[in-house]
């Protein structure tokens, strides 16, 4: 671009105007009563004003559209529209006019012109008009490059360019959090809860038209953002689904592994792709924006090689009365395991049965149901917990699980010495904490069944 070129030399003038949505004119109602000094004057003035609403002049929001007054902000996901006008300022006919509009981003250059063919001629005081649209997909500096080439009537070929720079900003801030909810009693099928916090970091209110989670192939998703009231789904966000600047909203989704993946607990493991959020919003008079997050990844809860889950457990048991529980042991490793069940009594819980019993071989991804009987001699935990029995049970199971883990360690490591875990006297406190976290992290108000975290991770010590 030859900047030093004197501007008068060009016969054509190029103008660009960003076409954001027009706005509705607001008027400023000032009224008086007939009895006041101006009498009916103020009323008449307002009625005569074309921008007021006839019959309701005091309604501030009028119907008159006004063109955008400034470039405004442009946000990722919105559509950049612009009017490009090339006007023949001279008094001569100009020929072979070619107008090209490119958008230069940090990574690429896009051609936005509707047509690339040259206009054969442009008479004085005539215009070439073009309205370009581009959905903004990159953040940061964009440069609209408009190039005009033409031939004067004397056959002189002229060319000029203009650059229009603008910044594309980020409209939303999205944060996600996963909660693993193990279906406590039924199976190893695990639900995952995704909590997404979406914050409007623009400066204008934003209507969230759609916020949905598109799950990856392994999951089915259900949205938990509506509550059914009288057969109608009512949004948990209230009547108006808009987000003021800097407001944050939390969306909740429940993901269930599809059956083919769910049954094999070992399949979903490590880092898995959960899906992505698709967000569509609108602002002034329907100005639309759309964004997708990147694939949300989640670290599947590691169960180690062995996973133990509860199948049945009584709600309440009597003191010093044996009761039955049953649990399920799943081999999540890729090796066959030989399991031995050690049962260690504590001062308050006593196992009924033989400790050190071999459970036999468990092949990968296979599971084993295990009925057990135990009895409690103390109520100590009851004072701490509301759900004491369950928690107690958790506690025991946890210990079993550690036992199992130890066995597993031995076998899988193939070492007789190395990985022996001494089961520590795990305090109830720990169990309690786990329980509390499980409770507090799920908001009952969300209408979600509470994920139960019965099984805990194997304790690993050196």
């Amino acid at each position, binding site marked *: 671009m030859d900047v030093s070129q004197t501007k008068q030399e060009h016969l054509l003038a190029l103008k660009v105007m960003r076409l954001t949505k027009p706005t509705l004119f607001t008027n400023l109602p000032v009224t008086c009563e007939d009895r006041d*000094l101006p009498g009916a004057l103020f009323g008449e003035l307002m009625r005569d004003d074309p921008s007021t609403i006839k019959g*309701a002049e005091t309604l501030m929001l009028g119907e008159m559209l006004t063109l955008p007054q400034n470039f405004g902000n442009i946000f990722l996901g919105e559509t950049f529209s612009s009017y490009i006008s090339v006007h023949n300022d001279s008094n001569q006919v100009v020929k072979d006019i070619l107008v090209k509009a490119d958008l230069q981003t940090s990574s690429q250059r896009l051609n936005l012109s509707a047509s690339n063919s040259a206009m054969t001629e442009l008479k004085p005081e005539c*215009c070439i008009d073009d309205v370009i649209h581009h959905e903004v997909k990159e953040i940061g500096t964009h440069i609209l490059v408009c190039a005009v080439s033409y031939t004067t009537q004397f056959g002189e070929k002229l060319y000029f360019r203009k650059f229009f720079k603008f910044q594309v900003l980020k409209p939303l*801030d*999205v944060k996600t959090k996963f909660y693993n909810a193990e279906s406590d009693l039924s199976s190893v099928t695990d639900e995952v809860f995704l909590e997404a916090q979406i914050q409007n970091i623009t400066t204008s209110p934003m209507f969230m038209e759609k916020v949905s989670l598109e799950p990856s192939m392994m999951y089915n998703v259900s949205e938990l953002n509506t509550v059914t009231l009288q057969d109608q789904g009512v949004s948990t966000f209230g009547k108006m689904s808009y987000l003021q600047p800097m407001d944050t909203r939390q969306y909740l989704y429940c993901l269930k592994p599809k059956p083919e993946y769910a049954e094999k607990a070992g399949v979903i493991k490590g*880092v898995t792709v959960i899906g992505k959020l698709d967000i569509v919003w609108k*602002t*002034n008079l329907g100005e639309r924006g759309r964004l997708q997050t990147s694939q949300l990844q989640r670290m599947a809860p590691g169960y180690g090689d062995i996973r133990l889950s509860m199948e049945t457990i009584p709600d309440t048991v009597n003191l010093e009365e044996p009761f039955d529980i049953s649990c399920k042991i799943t081999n999540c490793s890729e090796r066959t395991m030989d399991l031995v069940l050690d049962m260690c009594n504590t001062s308050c819980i006593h196992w009924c049965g033989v400790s050190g019993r071999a459970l036999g071989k468990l092949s990968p991804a296979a599971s084993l149901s295990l009925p057990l009987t135990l009895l409690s001699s103390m109520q100590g935990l009851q004072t701490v917990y509301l759900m004491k029995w369950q928690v107690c049970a958790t506690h025991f199971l946890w210990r079993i699980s550690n036992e199992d883990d130890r066995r597993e360690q031995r076998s899988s490591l193939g070492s007789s010495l190395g990985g022996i875990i001494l089961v520590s006297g*795990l305090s109830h406190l720990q169990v309690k904490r786990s329980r509390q976290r499980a409770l507090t992290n799920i908001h009952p108000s969300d209408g979600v069944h509470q994920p139960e975290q019965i099984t805990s991770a194997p304790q690993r010590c050196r």
Partner: protein
Amino acid sequence: MDSEEAPAQRPVTLDITVDDVIREAPSPEPTSQVPAKDYLLAQGESIDLGGEFATPQADSSASPLESLMDKLNDQMMESVMISDSPNNSEEEDVAPIDSFLDGDPNEENEGNTKYDTDEQAKCLTITTEIEVSTVQQNEDSEFKGTDETNIQEHFPPCMSSHPDRLSPSSPKCEEPTLEKGTHLKEEPVPVCTIFSQGKHPHSLIPDGFQPTLIKSPSFSLGSGGGTDEAVTPSKLTTPLVCQPSPSLSKFFTDNGQTNPASDFFDSFMAPSSFISVSNPNAEIAPRPKTPKTPIATTPEHQLSSLSFSTLSVPTANSAHVSVPTEFTEKHLPPFAQTVPALSQHLPSAPSSQSQPFNHLQAVFSGSDDAFAKAISLSEVDRRHDAWLPSEEIRKSLISVATQQYGPAYGETNRLTMPGLKFDNLQGDAVKDLMLRFLGEQAAMKRQVLTASSVEQSFVGLQQLISSKNWRAAVDLTGRLLTAHGQGYGKAGQLTSHTTNSLQLWFVRLALLTKLKLFQNAELEFDPFGDLDQLDLFYEFYPTIYPGRQGSMVPFSMRLLHAELPQHLAKPQEALDRLHNLKTVCLTILKNLEKCLAEDGSMSSLTEENTQESLKLWRSRLSRVLYSMANCLLMMKDYVLAVEVYQSIIQYEPQQRVQLLSGIGRIFLQIGDIKTAEVYFRDVEQACQMTDVNPSLTTCVLMNRAFVHLSQNNYAEAHAAFIEVLKLDPKNPVANNNAAVCLLYLGRLKESLGKLEGLVQQDPALYLHESVLFNLTTMYELESSRSTQKKQALLEAVACREGDSFNTQCLKLA
């Protein structure tokens, strides 16, 4: 044994909500290497949609400062909506972001607000200083005597200006929290970016504000591009403007029979003493211009001129003050127990007064219509002036009435002492622009009415208002108030009010508001406090307004006072005041429904009167609700705004269609098209219910057009506006909107031709700032010769518009 160590670790182990960091998970094989905390994890991660910005650049309009790339030193787009052709590069440097017309509710206006408050702070301090100094200057040459009521005579003129009162309330900066990083509350979380580069968004926010809505156009001078708006508060700093204008000082220092001041004074005061009891509007118009004897100065005279009060209270001439108390003594006992509200004593006066009237009326039995009229007027007075002051004021008013000597002398703090805060607004921005662009000769042709060119009376004032010369009208109110002794520099001095002086204040402040000179209005409103002061009630002046009670301040002025803070970035204060008004309205309505008088006293209101009162107060209530809703809309509290608009429908059922459409438009503004359509459907139903009324059909069509517009379907929107025009070819809104749609369809020339034609054919309708703004915007887009075309518009404006025309829409500056 790790039993000791284990507990410490376990919270992590068992914690299902552990925020995990994906990057830290080294391998998908957790068995032996992954730390225990990975087993059960919940990840919190921030998905950065765009990345972080290294430098804060909120919006393009803020970025001119940044160094430009070398090869980009041509026109930048940032602040400029319209870039210009080579010839006009000067013009395009003027960022149009300060455009006055702001209809865009979706653009945040905090930035602007901030700016405004800064500006405001500056202006206020400046004017305060000046205020004090000029007050001192005036100390010697104080001219009084224009408003000498007997009350004032009792007081030594109080010269101390009250610097405290003048000091502006410190402007609040409302948006300090915006810059807080808000998504850092969690532990360090990994950032997934959709796009590779990352930038941090926080610092962007403060810059992102666009000047909008709240902005007073007169303040754009500093930033916008220097229009020659005559009356920006910053101009008050120039000494010339601060002082009473030379013409005015002359006006009052000259003495003599032909003194226009005394002329004026008579024409102003005489009616005020008379009108104060009868209907003020009824008698204003034909006013003899010949100087009258200053009857206003003595209360006896006043009373004698009040024919009906003399008649009704035979003793009034001799012992006018005792009359109310006489009645009070008779009627108080039964009333005192039951009457809870406003002035327990005086209420008995009018009701008891009306009884003698009835007798009189019976006696004269229609032979004299003036009596019937007088009675009905007093009813009207009561209805309109009714007010519920605060308990304290109410008690003070009672004591004023019972002690016979009205004002409690010590209580100057409960009295208002208003005075003009600035003088001589005169100025004509249109003319200034003409001087600049069209030369002196053209400017000479501009003829507008000024304060001096009209009769110095209410008639002249009305003339100025209706010809849209509001600046001149403000000047005239200033003159009239000066004649009343509340002129420039008189703030803080004891004074008394009359019905008319307060009406003048109302007109002045209303016009300042209309001119968007909100700071000026606030300054002058300041001495009035919360409009709950002793001397703003008729009971305070038992000699001048015997038997009259209620608020001297017109309701419209209270409303104006309540609305004002919303324009000064204090919308919460405005809401508070509006809620107070609403409470009073509701209480009065409740009283009326219980067949009591407005103030809750036992009444002898006829059924007809009660109905009239109910009607009046319902309309006032709905007006207050409108203001509330408008204020909420400005605050972008759409939920509440919609709720309030909806609640107005019950009071103004005839505005149902307009209100529902308005609510629909609010939803469109938010972007919620579905809900908007729900409301528009309601509108259509409402229209079907009523008979086919063309204006309602246009309303339906208009709504459809807006929906199309919101769906980005400009062609359909255009078609719908054209449909409206088939029904109502002169509809300015549809015409303008159709033209706007054409532009979005890429048909600039057509659009321009249409608007130009409209402005030429029907300037009365289309010389409106919104239309002109659109037109000038298109001129700028179309050609490099936009300035000439704008000047042509300026000429058109000059022929028709008064001095209140907002020249910024011409974008000539």
